[in-house]
């Protein structure tokens, strides 16, 4: 089985060791080896792109160079990291002039972008490296009583021209991976709409309204939990429920579970090994259904 370089980024190690822990346990169970490299930096996501797009692209390229030197593809857990790195990787592979320009900058630190590796999202590694059939075989605790609302977030899918994870309007990869665990993937309105995460600290009211919209629509669709792929979506919807309660006086009690946590449970990792206690909205409702 292939090895991947794990790109952790900033938010996961700083705030969500539960995501990293479950992803590592999952990939270990599935026989994918993860390599941790020295010198990775922030991927330079939208807040940094807003300050200087060129700097951001050059820093993303620098990080890709480190994986190129190790001769391994990157797996990113965070949608933000995936987007920044996969966009830069695709743009530089496509555009020779841009590549030459970025390489002039990278020469300052003794690096050269060659375009020899792929940047993959956690979901892509599961789908392409392992595949649905193999995952189904490895499930020891099917989540058959669970209705899961998949929440892709924005930067796993868009801009699709560069990211190429799935169809940006009718994706199926996440739904299929949920159903491979024996769970039911629940359809709900505005499934592909933003969580508002990037507007926090800039327009908090809009950010919270976008998060609330997800809670309203997944509740209406009868979901037992929302499954996320991104630490920003997770925070917007998990801690966001405390803010929604304070502002709108509404209680949803909707557990937010990273897909990595769901699959780890289905593969037989014990709940107490997964740092589920760090969720603000307790996962107990979900765990009861699995018992």
């Amino acid at each position, binding site marked *: 089985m292939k090895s991947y370089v794990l790109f952790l980024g900033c938010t996961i190690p*700083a705030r969500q060791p539960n995501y990293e822990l479950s992803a590592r346990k999952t990939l270990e169970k599935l026989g994918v080896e993860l390599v941790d490299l020295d010198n990775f930096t922030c991927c330079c996501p939208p807040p940094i792109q*807003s300050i*200087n*797009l060129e700097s951001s692209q050059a820093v993303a390229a620098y990080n890709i160079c480190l994986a190129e030197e190790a001769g391994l593809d990157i797996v990113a857990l965070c949608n933000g990291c995936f987007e920044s790195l996969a966009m830069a990787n695709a743009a530089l592979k496509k555009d020779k002039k841009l590549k030459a320009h970025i390489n002039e900058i990278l020469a300052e630190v003794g690096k050269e972008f060659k375009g020899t590796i792929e940047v993959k999202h956690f979901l892509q590694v599961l789908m392409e490296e392992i595949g649905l059939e193999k995952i189904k075989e490895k499930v020891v605790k099917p989540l058959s009583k669970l209705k899961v609302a998949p929440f892709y977030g924005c930067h796993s899918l868009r801009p699709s021209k560069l990211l190429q994870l799935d169809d940006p309007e009718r994706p199926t990869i996440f739904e299929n991976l949920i159903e491979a665990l024996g769970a039911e993937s629940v359809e709900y309105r505005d499934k592909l709409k933003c969580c508002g995460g990037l507007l926090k600290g*800039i327009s908090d009211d809009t950010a919270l309204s976008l998060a609330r919209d997800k809670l309203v629509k997944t509740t209406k669709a009868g979901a037992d939990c929302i499954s996320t792929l991104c630490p920003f979506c997770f925070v917007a919807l998990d801690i966001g429920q405390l803010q929604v309660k304070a502002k709108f006086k509404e209680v949803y009690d909707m557990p937010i579970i990273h897909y990595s946590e769901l699959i780890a449970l289905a593969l037989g990792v014990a709940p107490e090994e997964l740092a589920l206690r760090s969720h603000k909205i307790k996962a107990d409702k979900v765990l009861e259904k699995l018992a």
Partner: protein
Amino acid sequence: MMTQKTEKTTISFSDEVTSRHGGETLTACYQCGTCASSCPVARLDSSFNPREIIKLSLLGAKEEVLSRDAIWQCCSCFNCQERCPQNVEIADLIYALRNIALEAGHSPNIYSDFASALIAEGRIVQISKFVEKKREEYGLPPLKPVGVDDLNKILSATGFTKPEKTEESK
């Protein structure tokens, strides 16, 4: 005798935008409004409209575009960019406008905090001692060193400047 030219030649705002990284596709817009109708922020906040930002940019209303809040209200979801029939890279265009606005001294203060953290730590979110201890408890490997020196060299080489905080800004 030669007549002295008094007219100053100034580059138009739309030329300025299209010459920027991310702004290249501005002039392809034909104002159909697919962006605005695909925008989750516009649905909630009528003061935000991506089509309007593009129109003002095309018309050269530089001050209005750069100094108003609108360009900072985009949630970067890329829905508009995905659906634009003219392949205007709208989300990237908004980054380009933000880059220009910031050079002109307009930006919400939070960007100054992001830049400070990036320059100092090479990360935009700090790792606390508490979390490092938690990692140990969970059996996660210690975090690897960050390439902060290389990162700062790249930032310098690309003219990255930390936005200053302003009093009137949020």
